[in-house]
């Protein structure tokens, strides 16, 4: 027998009070696209659903003091329609463009995507590449966690009972990109994803970079060894080759209904290469002219 309670949080303060009172009996509901499926599948029960979707303060994309702050309730549709992100954080914009389908994107939120912590969460590699911070609040106060530390396993994060994600914050980087391969061109959960962000010196030397992947390990991750190889070098064939070998060592893909681990091992470096080239502005492929982070089928 399904047994839930429901409370609607009027504002952040109200939400934090409910979360504090309910402790680990609380389940935040944002867009509901994960929660509703899990409730129906009987994966959760005996919880108080805390509806946060009416909290306007958690929605929207702001640029302030050289940082972009995306409210947790911002929908994927809003990300995919943001000219600011298209220019200043293409990795996140490209991920939003190929996320689920147009209708699901109207409900799905960035906070829900991160909190659910699926290995295949599409915004995760983009936010990892942008070195975003997860902004968290509870009755006890505020904290900020680098997203690279936030995910701890399949559907597992550092988020504690009583805590709410309020926003994702990062320094803009126009030199960033995201690619996804799914089983079809639309509405496909990722088989593998990659996002890269680079900082190039005038002579083409990579001063800094971040390489991130999704669906190839229990959690979305950074390929730190690949980053170390790239930093201080130019993006020539040898460097790319060495970096992609390091990507291979960083991932631990498994077989599932969507693809085999072996296949993921083949495509992940290809996605990283494309994201690197695209982020550096030297992309040559016809297929990504329209700024979509999808490897097209057919």
């Amino acid at each position: 027998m399904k047994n839930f309670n429901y409370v609607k949080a009027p504002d952040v303060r109200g939400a934090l009070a409910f979360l504090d009172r309910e402790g680990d009996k609380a389940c935040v509901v944002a867009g509901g696209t994960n929660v509703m499926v899990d409730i129906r599948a009987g994966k959760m029960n005996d919880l108080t659903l805390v509806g946060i979707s009416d909290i306007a303060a958690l929605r929207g994309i702001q640029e302030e003091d050289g940082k972009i702050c995306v409210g947790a309730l911002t929908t994927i549709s809003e990300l995919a329609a943001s000219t600011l992100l298209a220019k200043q954080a293409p990795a996140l914009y490209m991920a939003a463009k190929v996320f689920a389908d147009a209708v699901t994107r109207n409900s799905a939120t960035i906070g829900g995507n991160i909190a659910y912590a699926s290995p295949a969460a599409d915004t995760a590699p983009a936010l990892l590449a942008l070195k975003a911070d997860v902004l968290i609040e509870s009755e006890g106060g505020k904290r900020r966690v680098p997203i690279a530390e936030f995910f701890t396993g399949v559907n597992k994060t550092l988020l504690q009972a009583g805590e709410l994600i309020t926003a994702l914050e990062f320094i803009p980087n126009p030199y960033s990109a995201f690619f996804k391969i799914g089983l079809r061109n639309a509405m496909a959960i990722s088989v593998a994803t990659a996002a890269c962000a680079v900082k190039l010196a005038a002579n083409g030397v990579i001063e800094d970079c971040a390489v991130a992947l999704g669906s190839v390990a229990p959690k979305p991750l950074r390929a730190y060894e690949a980053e170390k190889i790239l930093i201080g070098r130019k993006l020539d064939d040898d460097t790319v080759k060495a970096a992609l070998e390091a990507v291979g060592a960083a991932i631990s893909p498994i077989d599932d209904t969507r693809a085999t681990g072996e296949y993921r091992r083949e495509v992940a470096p290809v996605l990283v290469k494309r994201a690197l080239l695209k982020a550096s502005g030297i992309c040559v492929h016809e297929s990504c002219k329209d700024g979509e982070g999808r490897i097209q089928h057919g």
Partner: protein
Amino acid sequence: MAELLTLTLKVNGEEKTFQAPAHLSLLRLLRDNLYWEVKCGCEEGDCGTCTVYLDGRAVKSCVTLAHACAGHEVWTVKGLGYADDLTAKLQKAFVECGSIQCGFCTPGMIVAAKHYLDHDGRADRKAIREAIAGNLCRCTGYQKIVDAIYNVACELSNNDLPHNSKLKTQNSRLGLSGSPLGGVAHE
């Protein structure tokens, strides 16, 4: 039996009060209250047959929590068909183009198409296919559905008025401009 909680929302322009368990989906709420035009396919967000208009955006009602819609405004394909010119045009075009075989996907398709055309959608077959990518059809092979939406898009862009401003008037008359669970898909 789980406890029933009260919620009030607008459905097809009428204020309604319901009793529903806390976890009920908007789809179940609507179907349990005789809005049978909203179809139940997968109940997992995959098929799109349950698509409705919520505060001016198409959403899949099976993955929308009913109680989260309290105080908001929901339109089904049937209500829109009576109250909204664009939806009526789409319905007519679906019939004329032979876009309906068994008809199960049609209510969701039309709401998804309305969302597309309401949010700057153009007569562009690729973009139309993207717009209905979350709506599955077992019968038609999509071609005739795309034709119908394309025809309506052409009709709108041929009007003297930019179709957008016309639709906005339409929407404000219907009060479809708010944005509770998420935003409008354009800037």
